[in-house]
């Protein structure tokens, strides 16, 4: 084992790294449904690359939100667990923090078999998905306007 990172160190490290590498003002980032800086820190500044990943995430979120809705309708805890886990990872990676959190909550509840307790979480989830999708659409639309023809 060369370099295992365990908490709380990595969170602090990550914070330090983020502050080091993302000098851009982060005020209000928490209230944005999707903070592009998170993705930028991973893949770099190339706008085409960013647009490509955001587009991919658009596809992922659509499919997984559908899976989650179906699992919710069918009270299928296992399917809910799997889909919420996937979307959690992807959402966090792309900077959709609030969506990541609500997915984590759904994953925990379904993992614990508390399907009936999911209703209120599911409502928040749907709202968050819509917010993220709208935000994504606006980012991608403005990107395409700015890109050279």
């Amino acid at each position, binding site marked *: 084992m060369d370099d295992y990172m*365990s908490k709380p160190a990595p969170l602090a490290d990550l914070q330090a790294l983020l502050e080091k590498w993302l000098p851009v003002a982060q005020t209000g980032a928490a209230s944005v449904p999707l903070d592009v800086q998170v993705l930028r820190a*991973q893949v770099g500044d190339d706008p085409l690359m960013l647009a490509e990943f955001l587009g991919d995430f658009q596809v992922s979120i659509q499919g997984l939100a559908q899976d989650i809705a179906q699992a919710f309708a069918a009270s299928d805890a296992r399917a809910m667990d799997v889909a919420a886990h996937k979307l959690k990872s992807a959402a966090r990676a792309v900077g959709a923090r609030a969506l990541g959190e609500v997915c984590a909550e759904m994953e925990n509840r379904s993992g614990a078999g508390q399907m009936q307790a999911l209703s209120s979480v599911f409502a928040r989830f749907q709202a968050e998905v819509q917010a993220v999708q709208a935000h994504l659409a606006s980012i991608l639309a403005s990107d395409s306007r700015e890109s050279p023809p």
Partner: protein
Amino acid sequence: MSGALDIHVVVLDDEPFMLKLLARLLVNQGFTNITTCDNGQAALDLVDSAENVPALILCDLNMPGMDGVEFVRKLVEHRYAGSLILVSGEDERILQSARKLIQAHHIEVLGSLHKPVSPHMLSDLMAGWKGPRRSLNPAPRKRYDAERLRHAIHHGELINHYQPKVSVATGQLTGVEALVRWQHPSDGMVYPDQFIGMAETHGLMDALTHAVLAQAFTDAAAWSRQGLQLTMAVNVSMDNLTVLEFPEFVSAQAQVAGVAPQRIVLEVTESRLMADLRAPLEILTRLRLRRFRLSIDDFGTGHSSLAQLRDAPFEQLKIDQSFVHGAHADETIRAIFFASLGLAKELGMEVVAEGVEDQADWEFLRQSGCDLAQGYYIARPMPAAELWKWHAAWQQRSDAGLPFLHKDAP
């Protein structure tokens, strides 16, 4: 790392977006030969392929179907010789136990990454990668037969190495633990894990323990004459404490060598659960009556447990290395460390922390109230003749406030 950018790296994740993102991170770091797999079977097929076998796999832990843990077991079956990095959104304890499991399978784990993966953490891990290993199966370990071992014991081929223990508060050398080695005339140094098991199954433990004790006492007496007053610790296993004359034997040996029983610590382990504890408990109690010191070794693992602490007259407790190394950074390990320490203190016992491997471990101990420390950060086991030289160097380090040696001190 620059020479290794063309190694074949496989990324395994069930979620297409994460898969692509991880691949992009690797491309950004300069890797040129990356394959993505969205299920474990696809990755195993690559491991089985004739060419372009992966040297490194980044593996997601939580996947439907074949999950990361099952995948790793299959990797072993498929004789995978490369390294692994775990990637997961799971919590720290799940990652830790997965890591332990994988290491138990003898697959090299470079580390684990939390999602979302930071490029800097990834590049740090990759920087620690030593390159492809040559083969999964190292030269098979040589097996020795009981007759050969018996010959070795009676012809002085077993020698003791000694690992220092120091005071946590002052850094002062207080004692050593004797660790047996087999100086094989043609195979070189053979370590105990290659012969102790056989000694146990072939009734050679008594002869072996006697050889170790005699040598340890002789060396302790020599150091004492040269002005170095040390406690000498020798390992004895509960399941070897069946010969009722053992206390008389130890007393006689100590007397012949001229070492006071107070300077002798018998470190006791119990490798298997014993049905009948009467003989070992009698032997331990009688050793204690003769003023030998008893230490419970590897506390918290195997059968080195609370029941032993209740039943036998131990006065020293050695916290197993797995609850010491890294305790500063891990809540679970730290909690177990402090619970063991507190328990021992409550019982008025002296406490030794095993497995002090780096500066961070040492500094953690300095704050903890633990009495003694032992581990690679302080010293590896060494032949008796090297103790003086190490001691001089250690005193210099100690006087200088224990500066950082170098990263991999051992």
